[in-house]
Every structure is written in structure tokens, then in C-alpha cells.
């Protein structure tokens, strides 16, 4: 149950779980849409760390390729999300997500 440098895989699982939980907490805790985007990035990175750790553990480079794809998707998501954010800011003059309640109910 060791990776190459002697760090057990368990520690990476705990690290990833903690990072993901912090991301969830941020999404629930903050109202600023930019910070929510950053927390989503944090969650994606938690998954990336877990994929790399498992790919190293099982000696299979496919996990790293998947991390590569996740990075590309994250970059696309951030670009579109920030563009949407700028549009909403232009219309509402705020990044508070509470004003975007027109789609509620």
C-alpha cells in the first residue's frame, strides 16, 4: 500500500476528501459567485489528486490522461463561467447570487 515515495495511498485519499469538503463548504458558505467558481476548481483538483494518486498506485498512466482531460474541461468551464459572470454583473451590478433568483420555483 505504498506509492513510489513511500507515502501511503490512504493519505492521498484523506487529502482529496478534505479538499473536496472544503470546496463543498465554500460553495455553500459564500455568496460571491467568483469565490464559488474557485471552490468548484478546488473540488476538481481534489478529484485530480485522487486520480493521479491511484494511477501511480496501480501503475497505469490512463489516470493521468484523464486528469489532462479534466484540466481541459475545467479551463473551458472557467472561461464560459466567467463570461456569464461578467454578463450578469453588467446587468445587475453585483456578483451576489441572491439576486439571481428569477429561476427559483
Amino acid at each position, binding site marked *: *500500500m*505504498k506509492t*513510489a515515495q513511500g*507515502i501511503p495511498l*490512504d493519505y*492521498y*485519499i484523506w487529502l482529496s*476528501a478534505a479538499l*473536496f*469538503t*472544503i470546496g*463543498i*463548504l*465554500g460553495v*455553500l*458558505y*459564500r*455568496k*460571491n459567485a*467568483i*469565490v464559488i*467558481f*474557485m*471552490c468548484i*476548481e*478546488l473540488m476538481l*483538483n481534489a478529484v*485530480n*489528486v485522487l486520480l*493521479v*494518486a491511484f*494511477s*501511480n*498506485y*496501480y*501503475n497505469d*498512466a*490512463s489516470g*493521468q*490522461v484523464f*486528469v*489532462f482531460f479534466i*484540466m*481541459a*474541461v475545467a*479551463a*473551458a*468551464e*472557467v*472561461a*464560459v463561467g*466567467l*463570461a*456569464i*459572470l*461578467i*454578463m450578469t454583473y453588467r446587468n445587475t451590478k*453585483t*456578483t451576489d447570487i*441572491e439576486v439571481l433568483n428569477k429561476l427559483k420555483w
Partner: protein
Amino acid sequence: MLVVFSKSAVHSVLYLILTFFTIAGHYVLLNAEFLAAVHVIVYAGAIMVLFLYVIMLLNLNQESEPHKSNMLKFAAAICAGALLVILIGSLKGTELYNNESSAVLADFGTVKSLGRILFNEYLLPFEVTSVLLMASMIGAVMLGKPEKDQDTK
């Protein structure tokens, strides 16, 4: 953790950059040098510059940060804590399949081996990713473009 709790959005971004460099260090530890390089370039370089640029563009500061009620904060903390407990509880019960032949190959995680896998087994997802990036770029430009007319404000 500081990403969430810092009051200013700019400080939040800076802490996030610190977190990304830490994760890149973990990639280096895990024999994924190429991914570490790509991670630093893409995240710490491109995405964080994009975030900072948007924050500067929107001119956010501490005063514009909205305040959530304490009730909602408490509920968020409870939800996140419950999720952490669930994750820990579910992971405690799992047993990892012990890989016998875990001797790391010499060229594991290098550009050469990664590229061989990427362009042999995962060629179609690679092309689809390029199309996705193109579509997102066009979409971002279309969204960010100022509207010509019909602004009724």
C-alpha cells in the same frame, strides 16, 4: 480553507494559487512531472490570471462582499461536516486491492509515455476535447461581447 474564509476575493485567489502550487508539488511526488508542469501552467498561470482579471475588472472589494445570515452559514458548515463524516465513514470500510507488481516503471509519467497513451488509446476524447475548448472559446467571446443595441436600461 483560507480560500473560503478570507473576506476579500483577491486574497481568496492568492490562497487558491498557493493551494494549486501545493497540489503541483504532490504531482511531482507522484511521478507525474508532465502533469505538474501542465497544472502550474494551466491553473496557476491561465485560470488564476483570468480570475484576477475578472475581479479587477468588476472592481470588487470588501464592501461589496454580501453577508449571509448566520443561520445559512451554520447550515452550510453542518452540511459540509456531514459530508466529510460520510466520506470518512465510507472510506474507512474500503479495502484497497494490494497491487503486487507496484514497481514504478522508469518512464512513468513522462511526456513520452503519456503522449503514447494519449494518442493511441484516447485519440477520440482528445479530439472531442479540442472541439469542446473551441466551442467554449467561441461561447465566451459571444457572451463577453458588449451588446450592440436593445439595451433598455
